[in-house]
Every structure is written in C-alpha cells, then in structure tokens.
C-alpha cells in the first residue's frame, strides 16, 4: 500500500530542482484549477444525488423503481468515454451544432472545452458515488425517526432538513470524499476537455519529456492536497453515534408528492437524460454508423472476458483486504486503525498512472517474476480501490449496533463465529455494494491497465482507448457499449435483490 508513496518520494527527492518546480506560478495555478474543479463537482454532485436518493426511497415519485435503477448507472461510463461523447455532441462541430445549424443558422455554440466541459462530464459521471452511499443510508435509517419529527409538528420539508439530512452526514461525507478524490485523480475527462489539472500536467510531463522526476514531484503535491482534504474531514467529523439502536423494522412511510411530482419527475428525467440517454444515444449513433460502414470489432469477446476476470478478482481481493480495516476502525477505534484507514484513503488520490509507474519500477527492480502478470494488475486495482471498499463497509458497519455482537458472545459463541453468523450476514448489503463498486471502477480503469496489463491482455477499456486515441470513434463504440452493459449487471442485481431481503418485507 505504502509502496507507491515511497516510490514517489524517492523519485521526487532525486530531482534537484524539485523545490523550484513546486513553487513555479504555473504549478500553483494548476493546483488552484484542480481544487476549483473538485469543489464544484462535489457540490453539484451532492445537489443532484441527495434529492434523487430521497425521492426514490421516501416518496411516491412515479416510476420510482425505474429511476433508482437508472440514476446510478452513469457510474459505469468511463470518464474518457463520457468526455468524448459529450465533446462529440456539444463541442464545436458536434452533433448538436449540426442539428441546429440547418434550421436555425446557429454556427457557434458556447465553448465547451475547459472548465465547463470538465465540470459537466465529471459531475454527471460521479454523482452516483454520493447517490449510492446516501441511498444505502436512507434504506437503513429507521423511518420512525421521521415519523417522530412529523409528529412533533415539522412538515416533510423541515423533517428532511432537521432529521434526515443530519443523519445522512456520514453517507454524504463518504460519497463526497470519493467524488472529490476522483476528480483530483481523473485524467481521461480533463485530457479530452483540455482543462489543465494536476493529472493532465503530470501526464504531459511524463509522456512528452520522459521526466519522471517532474511527474513525481507534481504527484507528491497531489498526494499532499488529498491528505489535507482527508485531514480536514477527520477534524470536522462529528462524534455522534449513528448506529440506529432499536430498529422498529417499520417500512418507510412514503410521502405523497402531489403537484411536486412534476418538478421531481423533470429533475430525475433531466439528470437521466443528460447523464445516460444522451451519451448512450451518441454511442448508439456511432455504433450504427460503424456497422453501416462495415467496421468489424476484432477480439471484442475476448476483451470482455479479460475485463470481467481482472475486475472480479480485483473486487474480491479488495473487499477481503478492506474488511479487517473497516472492522478495526469501527469496532476498535484507535490511533493505529485511524492511521491505517487514512493511508488507504490517500492511495485513492494517487493517479492510476502513478501507481502503475510505481509498480513497474518496483516490479522491474524487486519482483521480476510478477512483472507483466495479471497478479500485478489485480494488485494495482487493489491499491487503487481499497478506500472505496473501506468507506462502503464502514458506513454499513456503523449501522450494526455493537450489542448485536455482544449478544452473540454472551450466547457462548467465539468472536470468529459471531462474525460469521451475525456480523457478516448483516454486513452483506455493504459487502455486495462494495464488491459491485470495486468491480465497476476496476473495469473502466484505464492508465494502470494500459501500463500493467500483460502483453496481449486486451481489456474493454484499453480497446476503447486505443480506438478513440486513433480517432476510430465508430470502432470504439462497440467495446464501450459492452463495457457499459457488463458493468450494469452488478447494479441490476443489487436492485432486484432488495425484494428478497427479510428486513424489507412488509408486515401489514
């Protein structure tokens, strides 16, 4: 885990002009741009995700199930694919301009490139991080608390602000943390939208000058920024206990929206249209166009299989590693467990390319047999996605009251058996959610896969990238679509399984 950081440190300190590079005005400007983008993406993501989570779990919003299946789906769209699709629609000489030009004579659209484009793409692809975590929390939250508030004379609106929202704080925090750290490390979207954040500058440094030291220095800056964000979160985290003690087991009361359901529908529909329908339509357009032109997709199924194998392995390894960390942190809070958890978060802020380079360096020098193997790739995924898994497990674990485990102990069962028979089954939604998340993210990961995949091991993401970078947009469409379909499966399963959980059974 600490390996990439160590590598970074070595590379950075090996460079004589490291300090000079760090204090250049361009560097500080880049840093400012990165943070500015991160802040806005996070705020917009919360603004989109919290209302949707609440609408789909607590109200009679029409087509509720449909929305709750569709709204997390943008998570499966890789940022480089999303950016490319938006650019090909909204950008200069894009599809929209093409459509508008003929009847309306509009020849110029507002410039998409730069901040607006990066903001749009990153928000629409990343708000599901907040959505999933908030929705999971809402589903576990005892609805009686809301009924209590309504009973105390607060209407639905102030109940949401005074009772629901404060309880959602840990979930919103976990989700936001994932979003802002994702923005800090994203490369694909900012590269295509030509917005110079730290990652893009690092990449340019690395590829254009082959100056790994400069890239390492800037990466250190990136790590430092992420560490500061984490430190801030640690300082502000409330000490309140969020374990819901005696669950009433009541099924949530669904608020009737009345006339409000139209704006709510438009909101959900708008988000789904922008984040899903528009990119999917564009993708389909390219696909059909490619087929019409007789383009073939060599090795598509093989790449799909490779993607599944690598990401499923990564998900398993990551969850197994994340479980002890999450348990240690929640059940045996100590300085050590806190530090352990923070370190695993910091790794999330490491750009994939840095982790990959670090592993290449390390592999070549110390573990030659592992170099260019699937194991190395899976390990890289593990390093990259451990924090997601820990965050997911932690917020699930916080909802399981410790007295549940104590009851198991007092009934004569050893800790391990209590864990197997009580904690694990109760944790299952969190584990499944964590597996799904890691698998989804690993499947669309690009830079580390490009660098670490064994020779000839083509995955869907590398297939998309190579086509897009060679401007074969039509050829990229098929693997991109398959990637999107495959990574939708875990989310679909999650949705369907909810019916069979005993806790959701209606008593009547």
């Amino acid at each position, binding site marked *: 885990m600490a390996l990439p950081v160590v590598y970074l440190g070595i590379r950075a300190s090996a460079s004589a002009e490291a300090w000079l590079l760090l204090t250049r005005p361009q560097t500080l400007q880049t840093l400012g741009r990165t943070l500015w983008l991160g802040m806005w993406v996070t705020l917009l993501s919360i603004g989109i995700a919290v209302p949707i989570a609440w609408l789909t779990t607590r109200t009679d919003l029409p087509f509720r199930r449909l929305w709750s299946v569709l709204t997390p789906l943008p998570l499966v769209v890789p940022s480089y694919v999303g950016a490319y699709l938006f650019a090909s629609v909204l950008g200069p000489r894009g599809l929209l301009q093409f459509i508008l030009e003929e009847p309306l004579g509009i020849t110029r659209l507002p410039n998409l490139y730069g901040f607006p484009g990066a903001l749009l793409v990153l928000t629409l692809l990343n708000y599901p991080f907040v959505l999933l975590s908030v929705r999971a929390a809402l589903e576990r939250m005892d609805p009686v608390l809301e009924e209590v508030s309504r009973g105390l004379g607060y209407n639905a609106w102030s109940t949401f602000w005074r009772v629901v929202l404060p309880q959602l704080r840990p979930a919103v925090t976990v989700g936001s943390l994932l979003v802002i750290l994702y923005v800090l490390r994203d490369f694909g979207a900012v590269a295509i939208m030509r917005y110079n954040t730290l990652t893009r500058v690092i990449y340019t440094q690395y590829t254009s000058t082959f100056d790994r030291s400069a890239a390492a220095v800037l990466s250190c800056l990136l790590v430092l920024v992420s560490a500061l964000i984490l430190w801030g979160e640690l300082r502000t985290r409330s000490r309140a206990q969020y374990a819901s003690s005696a669950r009433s087991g009541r099924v949530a009361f669904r608020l009737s929206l009345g006339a409000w359901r139209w704006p709510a529908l438009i909101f959900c529909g708008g988000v789904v249209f922008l984040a899903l329908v528009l990119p999917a339509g564009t993708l389909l357009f390219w696909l059909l166009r490619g087929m019409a032109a007789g383009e073939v997709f060599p090795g598509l199924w093989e790449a799909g299989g490779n993607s599944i194998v690598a990401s499923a392995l990564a998900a398993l390894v990551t969850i197994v590693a994340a479980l002890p960390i999450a348990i240690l942190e929640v059940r045996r809070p100590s300085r050590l467990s806190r530090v352990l958890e923070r370190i695993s978060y910091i790794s999330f802020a490491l750009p994939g390319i840095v982790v990959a380079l670090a592993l290449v360096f390390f592999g070549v020098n110390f573990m030659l047999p592992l170099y260019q193997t699937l194991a190395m790739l899976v390990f890289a995924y593990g390093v990259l996605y451990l924090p997601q898994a820990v965050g997911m497990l932690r917020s699930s674990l916080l909802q399981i009251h410790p007295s549940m485990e104590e009851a198991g102990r007092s009934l004569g*069962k050893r800790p391990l058996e209590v864990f197997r028979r009580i904690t694990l089954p109760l944790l299952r939604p969190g584990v499944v959610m964590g597996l799904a998340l890691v698998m989804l993210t690993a499947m669309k990961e690009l830079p580390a896969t490009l660098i670490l995949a064994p020779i000839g091991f083509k995955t869907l993401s590398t297939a998309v990238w190579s086509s897009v970078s060679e401007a074969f947009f039509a050829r990229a469409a098929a693997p991109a679509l398959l990637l999107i379909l495959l990574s939708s499966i875990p989310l679909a399963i999650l949705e369907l399984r909810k019916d069979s959980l005993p806790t959701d059974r209606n008593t009547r």
Partner: protein
Amino acid sequence: MTTTPSLVLNQVSKRFGTHAAVQDLSLQLDPEKVLALIGPSGCGKTTVLRLIAGFERPDSGSISLGERVLADSYTFVPPEERGIGMVFQDHALFPHLTVAQNVAFGLAKRAGPSAEMELKSMLTLVGLDRRAQRYPHELSGGERQRVALARALMPHPYLLLLDEPFSNLDADLRVKMREEVRVILRATQATAIFVTHDQEEALYIGDHVAVMNEGRILQTGLPEEIFHRPQLRFVAEFMGNTDFLPAEVTAQGLRTEIGTLPQRLSAPLGVQVLVALRADDVQFEPQANSPSMILARRFQGMQHMYRLRLPSGRLLHAQTTHTRIYPPGTPVRVWIEPAHDLVCFLDGKAVS
C-alpha cells in the same frame, strides 16, 4: 437443574478516561436469587453488568462465579466462556434470523431431537410457539422482549443479566412483562441481576435490591428493608417519594416546626436532623388562621395527594382518602402521625 454457584464481586473498579464508572464495588449474589440493581441513569449500573458479562475488563478487583475466577489482575475469561446470559436494553435481536433461529442461537451445534424439544418448550414457556418462524421486525415490543429473554435463557446460563429490559415498552406492557418475567425467572430457577431505574420495578422483581449511585453500592437488602429502613438520605429520596423535615433532638423528642415527635434518638441533644416523611405519615385538617395551607391536590383514584406549605415555606405531601376534598388555598393544621418509628438522617446518614 444443577446447583448454580454464587456470584461474588470483590472491590471492582472501572474507569473510562477520567470518569470513575465503578468504584470499589463489592457484591454477592446467591443462587436462584434475583437482585435488582437500581440507581439513577449514569450511576454505573450498566457498567457493572458489562463487567460481569465480560464486555469490559475491570481495572482492579475480582469477579468470580463459585470457585471460578472470571476476572482479576491475572485472569480474564472472555464473554462466550462465562456461561452468563444477557438481555440487552435494545433487545439486540438478530434481524436476519427468525424467532426460532434467534432463540436457538446459543445452543451447541448438535441439532438433535432433544435440542428441538428444548427449543419448543422454551418458545411455549415465553408464549411464542406460534411466532417461531417470524422475523424480529414482525413482532410487537412485548414479543421481542420475550424473544430476547428466551434467547438468553436457552443455553441455561449460570446467571442472567437484564439491562433495563423494559425501558422500550409502554407502561401497561411494562407491568405485564415484569410479572411474566418474574414468573419465567422463577420457573427456570434462574439467578439474575436486573438493572432498572424504576423503583417500583426494583421492589417488585428483586429478591434483593441494591441501590447504586456514582459507581458505588449504597445499600443492599430485602425490598422492605430498602424501602422502610434506608441507611442514607440518597436511598430514602430515590426509593420513595420522601419529604425531609428538619428537627432538633430534645429531651422530649424531635422538635419540628409542626410539633414534637415523641421519638428518641442516640444523637446528642441539640443536634439538627432530618426526618424522612412519606405521604401517609402526614395528617392535616382545615383550621382558620393556621399558618400552613394547601397548595395543590392530585386525584389518584383511591386517594388524594395533597401538597402542603408549612410556615417556613417548606413543602410536605399528605395522602388522604378519596372522600376528603379541600380546595387549594385552604388554611390547615398539619401534624405527623407515624405508625412506626421514622427514619432520621444526620449528615445524610441514618441515625437511630
């Protein structure tokens, strides 16, 4: 039923940071007895249970069950090896298991016919045989309570700990459940410690009552002793609605502002003591121009509870039959007419 060993706590202390939750606490509980541990919230009573159950490790002192040391400076037996059952305040039922699975959780893995029979008779005992296949969220509060109790009793623990088990139930159900639980505890000959902050509950359910405050046990005894002969002012105050009236020890008896009581104390003459008065010790009758008066009346069905103001401004409570009704503001003469010796306190401690 094998004979159960007695529980002994010797000089047990437990601190959380700077807060001393339990201080030099000693306690003995004989087999097949139920001890009610009562005290205001935050007095450390739950910590005592958690120390006995093995969820906390004492900083000093020892806990033993019969010959077996559960915890001292060398030993610490983990909770699963203690054979001590616990009923949690929030019941802590496993939400993913049915009633039957919850109750059977503590049984050894041998799923033989005898275990099956035991489970059945336990479910029948707590009246849940028809609910065996339900999930906890499908049960009422009282039913969940009984599942929690049955689950804790199932492995035949040497000792059962109940941590304010009725605090989540409404008043009617509380009374009903406490009768049921008492019957079940007697039927299974369980040795139990019952933690509560409700005086009535403690007096009803305990063979013995221990009153706790600030991490210490103040007094242990039969329910009647605790109620009638409190050794400390705190106990008197906590266990019954008690008023305290200052009195001076004189040769004639105890001189108060409403007359002299012919009761002798071992305390020297001239000393100021506090006389503990319950509402049935105080009498009054309307009398014009009397300096005392009625402040309020509360109808309690069988009787009235009057709040009286004495000349000094001090308040006393007096209980009368339901036929005597006077409006607030009525001047009254107040006197004390005890059927027994009253308990007096000097510096917070009882003197006789």
